[in-house]
Structures are given as C-alpha cells and as structure tokens.
C-alpha cells in the first residue's frame, strides 16, 4: 500500500472532558490537568461510584451553543460531533466546488435516546421523534446536512478503532483520487449502555486509570468528539495558512484472536503499526513520539507493549510514548480522533504529553512511558487505536515542515 498523494490536515476540532475546543484541550494537556471525575450529566445508578471523563455540559447547553431548537431530535453524540466539526471546518469552505466527503465513526449512535425512551416510545408520543436517531448513520446524516456535504457520506463502526479507521479511509479516498477533501473523525457520548457494558466486563479501575503501570487495573470511560479536515496537499497549499500537519501513514489489521481480548504478542497492533510505517516509507526510528492506545487494562497495555517491543527490538529503542487516556478516559469510537488531535498538537507545539498516574513499569515489558510534559523535537507521531473484535489501527502524523 502506498500513499503517493500527500494528505494534509487543514483543520481540526475537538471536545472532551478536558476542553470544549482544541485550545482548551491543549491547555489541559500542557498543564497535565485531567478531566476524570464523578458522573454529573448521565442519569444512572453508577453515579457517585464510577469515575469517568464526561464533557461538563448538559444536552440543553450543547443545543444552546449550537443554536439548535430543543424540539429537534439530536442525540448527545451528534451534538458533541457538531461542535467539533464546526471548529474543524471554521476556516474551510466546504462548498468551494472540490469533492468533499464526510466519514464519521460511532459505536453508540443514538443508543442514549433509545435506552432512555425504550418503553416510553411505546406508551406516549412525546419522544417518538427520537426513534429515527437510533442508527449510527443517522447522526452522520445530520452532520452532513449541517456541513452541506451531499454526495459521499459514510459511517464506520469498528469499536474503539472506529475514528482511526474513519481518518484512514479519508486518506485512502483522497489517495485513490475519489475525493479532494474529507471531513473525518468520530464521536461517542457516555450512555448507560456502554457504562453498564464495560461494567459487566469488569474492566473498570476503582480509581484513576494508570496506563502502562505494573499495577494498572482497568480503564475510565470517557466521551468525546473530534474531527479533522484532510485534503489533497495541493489543495491545502493554496491557503494562506500552512497545513497543521500531514497524515503520512496508516495501517489496519485484525488480531483474529478473541472477541474482546488482545493476543499477548499484540499481533494486530504490530501489523497495524508496521503497515503505517510502510505506507509512510519511514523507519520505525524516525518516530519521535507514540500516542499509545494505553487503556490501562492489564490485557491491552501488555499486548500493545509487546507489539512495541516487536517493532523496536528492545525497550531502550522504543521512542518516547504516553497514553492520554488518563486525561480523557477511553472515549471509544472517538478515541482515534481525539488522540489524532493530541498527536498533531504534539507536532505543533513540539511537546510530548504526560502519561499520568504512572509509578512502576510493567515488569514483563520494561518500557517506561513519558510521565511529565516535556519539550522535544517531534517530527513524526504514531497514534494507536485498538478495539473489540480485534480491529487494530495505527496512524502516522508528520510535522508540516517535514
């Protein structure tokens, strides 16, 4: 697989537990300020017990910020996505005649409405206008209408690698000459469905998650939306501002090991990273920072760590890396996009963000993440996203001046 067409990142937008836009997300990363706290917005018996990365805005506040009437049927994932998409496209004229596509990722879709009105729909008419919001594709269609994208619109759902795959598809569609521009990313709000699902899997930490720590014992869930504007480099060059970064590589593989667990040697993760480097035509040693998937579950971090050791040969050779999941929580289908934004921020500000809550390296691996904010020469960043069903993806972002 080769990427003869250079893919520029011309815009980005993000909303997460650590900020309602990209600058505020950056401020939190820069000051190592996490967004994990008790549930405030979602109505669930898990309130007061579970720590999550929740966006501190109610649906009513989100609607208000977007200027959408509260009588209209928008679910929370779509509201978060709309804010991120607006920020990402603020300087882009989507209707300038170039072929623009929209590729959005979600796993929750409109499930937060379905679970709330599951019996109510049958009994009263008052919320039935939300019935249509259930399919994952519905929110994408609402985004498309707000953006004015009419032709190529699609939605990806591959669990926690969903947004990374949306970004990858955008790059491939541009490389294949089928699009000039792709608005790509993902969104997932917290829902009782996912909160209870991961609870049933007994995958939560009892406190704050500690990625790549010997004593890590599970994840915090989070919610977020993040989108990038990818363009054919020549199109991006025509603008007064230089691109934010380039997407120089991408890879996807399936672990084909288990429905939910990763193989110990991290086969899928290894293949995805290897492919991303191949597409970029880069040696693994050219990577200055790895934004790891690092969910802080015993299984993921071991598998991902082993995959890193397979790529680099030894613990010493692994470049600086961190998981930012301790800031945002694991934001599922949005994770690949919010972490793509963080990877691009690392390139823009020449900084590596902290892997919070770390005390002791995993004995079986011997790799040590970057635990504080540090300035560094960051030329290429690898960003990993792995999911249920064995779906593993890796994206490689490069400095705009490279």
């Amino acid at each position: 697989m080769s990427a003869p067409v250079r893919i520029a990142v011309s815009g980005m937008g993000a909303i997460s537990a650590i900020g309602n836009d990209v600058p505020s997300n950056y401020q939190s990363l820069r000051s190592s300020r996490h967004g994990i706290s008790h549930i405030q917005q979602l109505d669930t018996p898990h309130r007061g017990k579970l720590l999550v990365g929740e966006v501190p805005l109610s649906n009513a506040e989100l609607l208000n910020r977007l200027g959408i009437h509260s009588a209209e049927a928008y679910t929370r994932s779509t509201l978060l996505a709309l804010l991120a998409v607006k920020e990402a496209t603020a300087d882009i004229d989507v209707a300038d005649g170039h072929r623009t596509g929209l590729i959005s990722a979600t796993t929750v879709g409109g499930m937060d409405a379905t679970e709330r009105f599951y019996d109510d729909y049958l009994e009263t008419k008052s919320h039935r206008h939300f019935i249509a919001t259930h399919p994952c594709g519905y929110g994408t269609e609402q985004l498309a209408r707000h953006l004015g994208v009419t032709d190529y619109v699609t939605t990806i759902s591959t669990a926690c690698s969903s947004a990374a795959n949306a970004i990858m598809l955008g790059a491939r569609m541009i490389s294949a000459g089928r699009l000039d521009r792709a608005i790509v990313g993902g969104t997932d709000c917290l829902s009782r469905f996912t909160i209870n699902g991961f609870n049933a899997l007994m995958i939560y930490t009892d406190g704050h998650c500690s990625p790549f720590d010997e004593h890590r014992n599970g994840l915090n869930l989070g919610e977020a939306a993040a989108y990038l504007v990818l363009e054919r480099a020549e199109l991006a060059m025509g603008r007064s501002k230089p691109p934010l970064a380039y997407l120089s590589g991408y890879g996807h593989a399936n672990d084909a090991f288990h429905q939910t667990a990763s193989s110990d040697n991290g086969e899928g993760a290894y293949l995805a990273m290897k492919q991303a480097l191949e597409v970029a035509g880069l040696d693994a040693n050219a990577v200055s920072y790895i934004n790891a998937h690092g969910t802080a579950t015993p299984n993921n971090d071991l598998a991902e760590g082993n995959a890193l050791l397979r790529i680099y040969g030894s613990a010493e050779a692994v470049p600086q890396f961190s998981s930012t999941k301790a800031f945002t929580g694991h934001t599922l289908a949005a994770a690949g996009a919010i972490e793509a934004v963080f990877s691009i921020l690392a390139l823009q500000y020449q900084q590596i963000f902290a892997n919070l809550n770390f005390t002791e390296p995993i004995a079986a691996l011997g790799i040590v993440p970057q635990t504080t904010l540090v300035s560094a020469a960051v030329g290429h960043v690898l960003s990993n996203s792995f999911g249920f069903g064995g779906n593993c993806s890796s994206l490689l972002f490069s400095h705009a001046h490279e």
Partner: protein
Amino acid sequence: MPMSKPIYIHGAAGISIQPTTEPGYFFDSILRYTQNAIPAHDPDYKVLIPALQLRRMNKSMRMAIFTAQRALQEAGRTTVNAVITGSGLGCLRDSERFVESLLTDEGQSLNPTPFIQSTHNMAAAAIALALKCNGYNMTYVNNANSFESAVLDSMVYLDEHPDDTLLFGGVDELGERTTQFWDLAGYLKKQAPAIPTPLANSTPGEIAAEGATFFVASGKPTPSAMGKISAVATCHETDDSKALVSRFLRENGLEAGAIDAVLMGYNGDSRYDYIYDDLAQALFMGASIVGFKHLLGEYDTVTAAGVAISLRLLGEQRIPAALQLSGTQPKQIARVLIYTQRRGRNHGLILVER
C-alpha cells in the same frame, strides 16, 4: 471520479426471506408472506458452523459466517486477505437484550455477552476469527448505503493490493422491539403487508426483513468468475436521480441504452417508489426493469442481494418472471445497473458486468 479497476466476483452466497441458499434456486418459486416483519428463511447453519460455536452466535454472526463460508466454497478458497462488511443496524437483538437487562437490573452484575455481541463490527470480527484472517477488517454502518460503502472500500482496497482476495458483504437482522419502533415511526406497511409486495396501486410503508449476502472478490479475472463490479457510487441526498444516474453513466463511458437490465429498489412504498418510476421514464424507457425488494423485503443492506441477483442474471442469461417488472427479455445480459434508495435518501449505484 476516476475510473477504477473492476473487481471480479468468484463466489457469492445469500440468506434472505426466499430460499436463496437452496442449490440452483433462482426465483422460479416464491415464498409468500402476509406479515410484517419477516424473518430470514434459515438454512441449516450446522452444515457450516460447529454446533458449539453456533449456540453462542447471534443472528447476524451466523448469517454472515454461513454466507461467507458458502461464498468461499464457491470460490474454492479457505481464507482471504481482508473482510469488508456493511450493516445498517448491527446486531439488533443483542442490543435489545442488553438494553432490557440494564433497564431491569442496572447497577447489578449483568451478563456481558449481549453487550460484546451487540457491537456493529461483530459479524466482520467473527468472520476474521473463523478464518484466522489478520488482514484489513472494516464495518460500515451508514444506513441504506452501508453495503455500497463496503463495495467502494473493496474496490479501493483491491486497487491498493492487486494481488489480494477479499470477502465483502452486507448483513442485517430484525429486532423485535426495533420493529415496533419502526412501525411507530411510520416506516412499515400497515395495510395488507405481503410478499410479493404489490407494486401497482401501492400503499405507504415498507416490509421489514433481514438477510446476509457475501462475495469473494479479487482484482484479477478468472475463467470461472461470475462477473465483475465495474463501478459504484453513493449519494446521500439528491432530488434529481436522473442527473445522478446520468453522471454515473457518463463517468463510466456508457449510454443508458448500453444497460441490458436495470435493477431498481421498488419496495411497494407508495411514498418513494415514484423515484424509480421517474428514473425509468427519463432514462430507461422500454428497458428491462428488474425488481428484488418486492420479494426480499426491505433492510439496509438488501442491495447486496441485488448484486447476487445481477451476477446470476449474467450467468443464466434470463430474467425470472417473478423479478421482471417491465420490458422484455433482453437478447443478452452483459451489463446490469443497480439503483436503490431508501426513504428518498442514501442513493446507491452499482454497475455489474460480465
């Protein structure tokens, strides 16, 4: 859109509400139904899936694995390099089951299996697991363009990897509560629902159904290939289908008259079938118009079954009477155009050629 290389189909298999898994079946006898929704006409899944695994699989997983394995058998292969799937609604029954368990027992320990198996990528993942396929594995969930998105990705993938072979397809299952929701939302036909669905003097609403169809494809022609997909396009929103189809034909260097049969997504919903009537009048007067949703019902990825039918038309060189809506038997069937939309949105075009 640039011309992309065609992809060649080496095997195909589908489960639907008609006995499409029976050897040689080609719509010469039709199962009739007078209900809404209609579950798939199940094959004996045990023939291809070990009983122990089968018990743990939801409907989407078993339909997807069964048809994927059948398509592989037909193509004479045991594995592939990539799996690309579309599913508008994913594993609905497990989703419903998990919602129902959390509504009664939230906060207590719930069974995680329906949650795990509710994720939309579970059918593609189950195929990868069954085939031990470490390659590219994707799931599109874009309503009635989910399968078309998978076709487009398959074409792009095989352009990037000219030596590879892949499985692609679509799967959607019915959910009991979700069907009630669609009924409340006004999507479903209430008045005398029937398969075959009458298309003349039709009434509002769709017939909800389910099914799965998978294909084995590569970028290389073989003497035994069933046909090829030469082009695909999707359009989320347009009120000018004629312009959309004309542009598609032009991009592929074709006149409307070069199409031997046009598969259209007539589903008997009086609110939207006029889109097909208008297109037929504008571009395909007198052409052979072929239907399939009036026999298979409506679901997001039913177009996958339309592709399987198109390939059979090429092989059999005849249009079964139950499928033919207008026009005459073409002298030869070398080129089939599939045009579908659902509820006026998610328009899809697929060109299938000999």
